[in-house]
């Protein structure tokens, strides 16, 4: 009667069986393409050609002399610097407010979260309308006497406009992460602080902020990666224009690979981007560890 205890071999068999299919899917759609893009980054890859032209590291050398690549990198960095801190602070602030006993908090939580579950293409199209010359933003600003601006075609405001959209869509998403983190903070910490005379603001800075640090780490990493890879909003709203004012690195990868069909060069830029993201994440982990206490 050994039916209830399967042998170790049996367990292993089923474990590998269940692992096989997801691993296969990941291999086909993730791992192999990554390796493949690494390979083609050393070629002048032509889709239809029977023989590919090996370039060595020439694609990478070209990148470092490419002005538009630098422009894309600068845009991406500006975008990240603009979005990540504001988004993180806003998400934490929203979560802190939503965690209080206020009227209609279920409604507000849902309202803030809806952008996160809406397709980014849809929200981008809506924002194109909002940002247009006759759009909502201009009519609201018009009430206060500001002149109408064509937000997305003005090189000075195009990038900022896309940043605002991104902050709006993702703050609600990260708010949920912070909410979960806040609910893990024992209430007695706030009570102890209250007895010691800490105001709500002091409680926020001395208890909430340090206590949600692991969540903050997660949020910053996720939003850093998200910002470095920003693509869909740019694609829908501005096509990288005007005059490359909104060309981000991801968009530049796409442009090279699928507009100019320079697949090898596109792959090389993608690899440089991946490298940059990795370096930034490692630096963050080293200097801002998730849980020092």
């Amino acid at each position, binding site marked *: 009667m050994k039916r209830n205890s399967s042998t170790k071999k049996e367990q292993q068999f089923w474990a590998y069986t269940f692992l096989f299919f997801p691993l296969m899917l990941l291999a086909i759609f993730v791992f192999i393409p990554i390796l493949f893009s690494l390979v083609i980054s050393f070629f002048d890859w032509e889709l239809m050609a029977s023989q590919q032209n090996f370039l060595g590291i020439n694609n990478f050398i070209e990148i470092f002399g490419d002005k538009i690549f630098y422009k894309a990198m600068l845009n991406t960095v500006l975008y990240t610097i603009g979005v990540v801190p504001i988004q993180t602070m806003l998400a934490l602030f929203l979560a802190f407010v939503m965690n209080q006993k206020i009227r209609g908090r279920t409604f507000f939580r849902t309202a803030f979260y809806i952008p996160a579950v809406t397709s980014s293409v849809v929200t981008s199209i809506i924002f194109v309308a909002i940002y247009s010359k006759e759009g909502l933003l201009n009519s609201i600003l018009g009430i206060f006497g500001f002149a109408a601006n064509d937000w997305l075609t003005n090189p000075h405001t195009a990038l900022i406009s896309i940043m605002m959209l991104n902050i709006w869509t993702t703050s609600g998403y990260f708010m949920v992460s912070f909410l979960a983190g806040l609910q893990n903070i*024992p209430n*007695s*910490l706030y*009570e*102890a*602080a*209250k*007895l*010691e*005379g*800490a105001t709500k603001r*002091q409680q926020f800075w*001395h*208890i909430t902020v*340090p*206590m949600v*640090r692991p969540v903050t780490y997660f949020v910053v990493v996720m939003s850093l990666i998200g910002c470095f890879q920003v693509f869909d909003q740019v694609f829908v709203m501005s096509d990288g224009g005007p005059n490359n004012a909104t060309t981000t690195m991801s968009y530049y990868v796409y442009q090279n690979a699928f507009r100019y069909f320079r697949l090898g060069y596109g792959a090389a830029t993608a690899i440089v981007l991946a490298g940059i993201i990795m370096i930034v994440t490692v630096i963050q982990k080293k200097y801002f560890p998730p849980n*020092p*206490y």
Partner: protein
Amino acid sequence: MATIEIKNLQKTYPNNHYAIKGIDVSIQEGEFVVLVGPSGCGKSTLLRMIAGLEDISGGDLFFNDKLMNSVHPKDRNIAMVFQNYALYPHMTVYDNMAFGLKLKKMPKAEIYQRVTDAAKTLGLTEYIDRLPKEMSGGQRQRVAIGRAIVRQPDVFLFDEPLSNLDAKLRVQMRTEIKRLHRKLRNTMVYVTHDQIEAMAMGDKIVILKDGVVHQIDSPINLFRHPQNKFVAGFIGSPAMNFVSGEIVKEEGLYFVTQGMKISIPPPLQVSMEKYLGKSVDMGFRPEYVYDKGLEKERRLSTDVEIEILVVENVGSETYNHFRLNGMDTIYSYRSSSSNVHIPGEKLTVGIDLERLHFFDVETEKSIL
């Protein structure tokens, strides 16, 4: 230092649940008062109302004759020690203790002085730079106490501070808290569900059940003169035994139940007269049941025949659980560890007549 006056204090929740149903307690300056009761009795709620962490729904709370009902917690000059310590995990021991003082903008030198003094008192000096996670439960609770001490409050409030510690440490810490009280002489209010802890620590014990005070008294009085059946059963371990029976009159008054006939001791004869022919509950503590073969000096009741069911030998003494002939209830009897019984043993015992308690069946009040 402060006196606390609690007058008809009430706590009602929006769902019409009455957590505290009109409580009166007065606490003297420097007194160590323990609030004790089973879970859900309202003891923590009462403490949190004193602290200002819960609103007062009715009645008044005074500190030194000053109405405190709507005074903000930080202005009540109290310090509280929580069950889960409530230390700030990202701050060192020093910073945890200094936090409240920093908020008060106290000069750095004075903060340093107070914190190092408190650390010394509590034996925490060598841990001053540690984070809470690097310390044991007992040490953390000491930090929490230190955080209370440095503020030099009028009143210390303790909310089950020892519940998270293991049994041995709990006994050790309760001595330390008592020692601290002797040294500081502050008013302290201490909540626990553990009656032994309450008895060991309190100058005065408030027994609560279902949001009502059942008795306020010194530990020894609670043990000797419980005012009702609940207090009688709650205080003491193992708990008091209760038997239902009837009062009959022969040449004197007797309490009669199946296989047991006990003469009512003279001081109670008068008050028991009105229960003649009625049923009452009798209570007797396991400590006051004696083996008739061994005990010759005390005035014991008539013979009671028992059969031992279970024997718990805890070393210093033995708890024998038995059944009175024919009845289902299991009673207990404490014997010395030298007088060890075995399960199944039949025995003749007597109850110390001076240690009997009688309770009105309806009101559950002690018949005195």
